[in-house]
């Protein structure tokens, strides 16, 4: 693999890290307990104002921890240190499932854009929570390929925080109605992140279809099987292969 192969990945990680820090810096206003931030003022009157403000602060604080942590966890540096990766992954998982997603779900109920805004945020949160659970379960059973695929979805959904804000700014410059822009800038990145994560998974052989095709390709490329390819059916080849499956289960 060429040295340039990792450039888009590094560029993405640096861009997201910069975006995450920018958002965190801009969110400091939410911790001024004397003044209500404009984001809250424009939603007033809120039925549960105190609860909303609490959820907002929890969400902002947990995102400021979880997003950079997740970005760090997908770097090769941390992946080469499995013990540290595991522990930081546990911290990220607890923060995401214990604070980020529940507070985000609460905020989603009062999201701008009506039910379209609410559904968009709930969908993004559901994808993150599901992917974290699936990713942790995959890691615990030693299926690192499935783990990487799940965590790809976590990071890409978190990147919506940055891409969505960037789109809001771009739409504002283009003079688009801010209410329409808000919903488009939410749903676009949420769906694009799902598609993008799956495309990357297929590209790097993390998706089940790609893994099955790779298995089949390896099977037919095996020189020791030359001559017998035509005599066997290729159908068993796409059977899903599991990395690191315990040998004891074979032939049960």
């Amino acid at each position, binding site marked *: 693999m060429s040295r340039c192969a990792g450039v888009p990945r590094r560029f993405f990680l640096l861009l997201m890290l910069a*975006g995450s820090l*920018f*958002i965190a*810096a*801009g*969110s400091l*206003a939410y911790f001024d307990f*004397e*003044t*209500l*931030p*404009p*984001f809250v*003022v*424009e939603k*007033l*009157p809120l039925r549960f104002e105190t609860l909303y403000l609490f959820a907002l602060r929890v969400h902002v604080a947990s995102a400021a921890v979880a997003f950079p942590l997740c970005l760090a966890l997908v770097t090769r540096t941390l992946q080469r240190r499995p013990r540290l990766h595991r522990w930081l992954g546990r911290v990220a998982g607890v923060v995401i499932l214990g604070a980020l997603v529940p507070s985000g779900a609460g905020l989603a109920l009062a999201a*701008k854009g009506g039910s379209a805004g609410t559904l968009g945020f709930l969908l993004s949160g559901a994808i993150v929570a599901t992917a974290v659970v699936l990713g942790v379960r995959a890691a615990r059973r030693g299926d690192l390929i499935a783990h990487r695929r799940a965590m790809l979805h976590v990071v890409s959904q978190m990147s919506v925080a940055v891409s*969505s*804000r*960037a789109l*809001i*700014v771009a739409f*504002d410059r*283009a*003079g*688009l*109605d*801010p209410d329409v822009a*808000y919903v488009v800038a939410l749903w676009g990145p949420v769906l694009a992140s799902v598609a993008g994560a799956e495309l990357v998974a297929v590209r790097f052989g993390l998706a089940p279809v790609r893994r099955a095709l790779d298995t089949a390709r390896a099977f037919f490329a095996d020189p020791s099987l030359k001559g017998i390819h035509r005599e066997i059916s290729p159908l068993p080849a796409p059977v899903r292969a599991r990395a690191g499956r315990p040998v004891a289960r074979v032939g049960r």
Partner: protein
Amino acid sequence: MLVAPSLASAAESLADWVKHRVDDGLVKPLARAESKRSRFSRERPPPAERRVRVLEASAATDKNGHTFVPFVVDVRYGLDWDENQIVGCAYRESGNLFVKAGNEFRPAAYLLGKRAEAVPGVCEAAPPPSRS
């Protein structure tokens, strides 16, 4: 003939006073606050322009006997004006500004993030006294 121009002039000066008062007390502070905040957020982007419209040519009186003039603020995003984004009233004697939030009126400072509770009875014209 002499009375009509003076009435028109009084009405014009009242509308001008409300416009200036809303401009100084609400529109300019909002623009100042918006210029300081990060654009990279989920907050509604600051509008390209705001305009104040005075809804009544004469002042109304609330149930406490204070005179007020209702106004609205329209905002422009791109080419389109979004009308009545802020609905409120300006009190003639005190210069106090109130804005509508839901079904109640709060001091205009609440739009700048200051904690301000709803004030009952403001910006609502008192019913004309019944003649018995």
